[in-house]
């Protein structure tokens, strides 16, 4: 069988924690240095993001990184920290690669 490359475009990698922290700071914590945002900092309890913020983040993942999240992934738990957002995006990328 010919080893032709697959005709589908290569999936972009999921955004890194630094990318996500950069967006969260730019959009929700203006004036802060993104490096100061601990990846485990609870963004929900501290009201940095609310449900509207989750939608903003999902739209950013889709528009800027081509990562589309199914509705059932849009839960608070999946957006609680930068690390959780990274894992959520990572799962979505893995799912698309499998598909």
């Amino acid at each position, binding site marked *: 069988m010919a080893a032709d490359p697959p005709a589908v475009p290569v999936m972009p990698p999921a955004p890194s924690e630094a990318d996500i922290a950069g967006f969260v700071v730019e959009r929700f914590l203006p004036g802060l240095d993104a490096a100061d*945002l601990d990846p485990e900092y609870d963004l929900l*309890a501290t*009201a940095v993001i609310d449900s509207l913020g989750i939608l903003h983040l999902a739209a950013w993942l889709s528009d800027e990184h081509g990562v589309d999240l199914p509705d059932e992934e849009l839960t608070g738990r999946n957006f609680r920290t930068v690390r959780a957002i990274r894992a959520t995006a990572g799962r979505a990328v893995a799912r698309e690669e499998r598909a």
Partner: protein
Amino acid sequence: MTRRPLPLAAAFAARAGERPSDPALVWEGRTTGYGELYAMACRARQQVEAAAAPYPGRPVGLRVRKSPEAVALVLGCLMAGRGFLLPSHELPDLPLKELYEQAGCAVVLGLAGDPLVDVVVDPSAPAACGGTGQPRPPAEVAEDATGFLLTTSGSTGLPKIVPLSQGAVARFTAWAADAFALAPGSTVLNYAPLNFDLCLLDVWSTLAHGGTVVLADPERGTSARYLHGLVADHRVTLVQGVPLLFELLSRAAAESGPLTTPEHLVFAGEAMPARVLAGLPPAFPHARWFNNYGCTETNNSFLYEVDRTRPVTAPLPIGSPLPGVHWLVTGDDGRALTGPGQGELLVSTPFQTTGYANVPNGGKFAPHPDGTPGVVYYRSGDVVLRHEDGSLSVLGRTDHMVKVRGTQVSTQHVESILLEHPAVAEAAVVALPDPVAGHRLHARVRLTEPGSAGVLALRQHCAERTVRAAVPSVFETVSQPLPRTSTGKVDRNRIRESLSTARP
């Protein structure tokens, strides 16, 4: 209190007769004895009577800064049986003029020439008391006759004029003397400007009971060393004031030594932050602490003595109602709570006004169907929490309650949480309209030192202490002191205006 207490002027005159050489006032290092102050008050009385004679029954306006002469002028009005409006001298001329008019002032009296002053009074002028040289006793006054006309702090618009009857002030001074053992030998620091309701305790109750008032110059009210010197040098036994005063005294005590003479500390005006409370024990090793709750309309209504043998947590409870005070807490339906819960505090005190002189009372003073029949309650505008054991804590003002994503939030409560953070020196939280959330909270915070706490740490601090809706959506840290109103409270209106004009 079974005996009817003496009116303030009569009580002062009696003290002056008993112990004329006792110190009444200390000002700028100079002591004025009771006899001397009485003579000054007599001279002021004559001049008040002469100036106001054509206008029987009308109050006079006073335009004075704090000084022994100003104290004598107030006493002179009381001795003449004249009502007097005592507004803040910091008010601009235009609103001040309006206030004098609204109060129906016959003439405006001052101690120095001024465009607003009709008659300059000189309590030190040599004219003796009465033509015969014999001092006349203070005029007889009816219990319900108006004496003091104070003003509210008025963060919005013109201050409201609060008339206090001779009887109300007499009852107040009797209570204060009882509660804080005011007597000859007591030395009381007066920090507030002379027009503040706090002076009913620290100036007027002290003079009615033979103690000494150490007058602090409001111009130097932020000098920690000056204030520490006043307390230490004059062996002050009672200190009443806003948290700022106690913060300044504690700071100075850390450098210049503890203040060992104060026996009573009375917290007033706003809630004491945890950080300020924590600084008190080394600064005042022998003092009892009292949290005082009241307002200009009712004067003191609740008092809480802090139990120093147990851990102290902020905000302090407001404690028990004073003798003769009626109170209830109304819930959302306007009915009185019968158990634990949250609502507006309604109070009635033996010291309260009968209503504003210049604006409609707007339902602020009224009987309540669930209250004691015949008792007129004042709607305090304070939201309180009634605990299981019946004690009360103040959560904030009803007008500081906003809805954020459907949750009732007190911006003042959020401020008090921020002030508990050791790195926060000042905090203001304002609610801005938000199309989605209803309101969003904006916190402006001045740190004790730049960089001493990050925005993330402050968010975390709030999140650990309150519901998520009460965590401000924006935290702004500044290095400049927050703007304050003429009465020293953080000027949230100015902050809100600066934010709504800065953003589209």
